[in-house]
């Protein structure tokens, strides 16, 4: 009884303190200079270049990791191989590793002194690499439970009726896991647009070339232009939100319970 009454109230208070209030604070800061100042902050050439780069890289990484995440999740669910449990545990490491350490490590492995001769430092590929690293757990973990639950009898039935494995994948498997893949892609995208620590070292941070939005925002905050920093942040949050809502709408077409 107590839980039923106090539960929602506590949850809403917690959510407000933790998420809504800070977002509202950024929002009010963004509008503190008026609409004109907000527009000039988000339309400044550096901001436009950084936003474009960030959104393109984030979209690319979300799409790529959806496929890579599916392959890895499939391997973890359907295949038996030695060390499977270890691989399963490794997937979450990008979450645990401090992003600045991730950035340094990626720079030493895929920078000018790369032991494999792969140098992507100071290029958009470096940004893609860092974003792919930090967002991989989202892509794997969102499809994995669905694959576990997936009814294998339907696949076997399709096969016994003469469907090739490609057809089975397209007609039976993909429709079931597509909503989960989309959800994973949405989370990966939202994480990628705001990522700072892992990206900023390997990107080279060159304005107009490899400077991501979070780094431009950081520059603005360091230059004491907090309202411009908040304005660009709000635009990023709005875009991430629009993408997540859009994905929610698409998921509906798959008749998925929205609360999941």
């Amino acid at each position, binding site marked *: 009884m107590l839980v039923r009454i106090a539960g929602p109230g506590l949850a809403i208070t917690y959510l407000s303190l933790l998420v809504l209030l800070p977002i509202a604070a950024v929002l009010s800061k963004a509008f503190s200079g008026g609409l004109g100042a907000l527009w000039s902050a988000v339309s400044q050439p550096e901001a436009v270049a950084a936003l474009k780069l960030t959104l393109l890289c984030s979209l690319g990484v979300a799409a790529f990791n959806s496929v890579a995440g599916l392959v890895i999740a499939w391997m973890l669910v359907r295949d038996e191989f030695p060390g499977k449990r270890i691989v399963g545990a490794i997937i979450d490491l990008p979450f645990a590793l401090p992003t600045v350490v991730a950035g340094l490590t990626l720079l030493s492995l895929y*920078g000018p002194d790369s032991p494999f001769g792969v140098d992507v430092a100071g290029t958009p590929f470096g940004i893609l690499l860092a974003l792919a690293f930090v967002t991989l757990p989202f892509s794997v973990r969102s499809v994995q439970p669905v694959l576990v639950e997936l009814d294998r009898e339907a696949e076997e039935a399709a096969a016994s009726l003469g469907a090739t494995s490609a057809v089975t994948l397209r007609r039976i498997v993909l429709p079931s896991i597509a909503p989960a893949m989309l959800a994973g892609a949405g989370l990966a995208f939202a994480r990628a647009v705001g990522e700072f620590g892992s990206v900023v070292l390997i990107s080279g941070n060159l304005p107009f070339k490899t400077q991501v939005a979070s780094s431009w925002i*950081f520059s603005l*905050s360091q230059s*004491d232009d907090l309202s411009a920093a*908040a304005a660009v942040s709000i635009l990023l949050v709005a875009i991430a939100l629009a993408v997540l809502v859009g994905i929610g709408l698409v998921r509906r077409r798959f008749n998925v319970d929205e609360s999941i």
Partner: protein
Amino acid sequence: MAIYKSASWTRARLLAASVPLLAIPTLLAAGPASAASGNVALVAYSTPKPAYAALISAFNSTAAGKGVNFSQSFGPSGTQATAVVNGLPADVVNFSLAPDMNKLVKAGLVSASWSQGSTGGMVTNSIVSFVVRKGNPKHIKSWADLVKPGVSVITPNPFSSGSAKWNLMAAYGAQLAQGKSKAQATAYLTQLLKHAAAQPSSASNALQTFLSGQGDVLLDYEDDALYAQRQGEPISIITPPQTILIQNPIAVPKNATNPAAAKAFVSFLLSTAGQKIWGKQGYRPVLAKVAAQFSFPKPQKLFLISSLGGWTKVNKVFFDPQTGVIAKIEQGLGASTSSG
């Protein structure tokens, strides 16, 4: 470092506009302060961290410093100043450049007379140096060498790093010192930024980037370069013929919870004994008699930020992120790369 930076930026941003959250650090600060534990909260920029380890242990062995505990926070200068303005408790603040101290003056946290002391409010000096690969394979000797074909430079992003501002003002002032006009000096800055292979977000990120193998020359604080060399990094340090004298300010904020111990610590840092330790750590002492005991390289021409109009003017003219000279240069370079 970067993770701390982003964390405290978020904190600053959240605190800035939300009153209930503002009260939290203040309440937390009230706890340890009321207990007479002799705790001093030191808030400083990143580079002097190793020096402070030596200085605090030396201070603790003096009569005034016996039993004084320190809580230490290090991070990019601008971030640290913003954090203190937004409620981070501080008994001693040490920044990389005066404008960050002035943020605290503006917020009413530090007296406007902070720069009135015998050392002008400064605790250490340094210069902008060239860091090159060991043995200087590209024969970098002068500012002109940095903009030769095939030479790439690492200097932090001037909008996020105080160190980068020192670097670019050193470059600009060096041109004037060679008899060039202001227009020629600005043209030199354009050339220099064109040769920038990376503009990392902070001085420490810039050093990491250079040590990872990128770039031929890193513009850096002399003390930071000396530290990297002591750590065994394969670098050589070149003193430019003309460079700027870096001056790092220190103060005890008005709302310090332990002002007596804080002032005693600052006096120690400015004493002969304290300045000797700074010197050994690669900083140029602010006391002439201590500085004379060290043999730091002497550039032909060493100039002050005041000779370029002082930080207030320089910040406005050069480093405004929308209208500053540097913003215009970056925009020009950005436009030329996207159209060509």
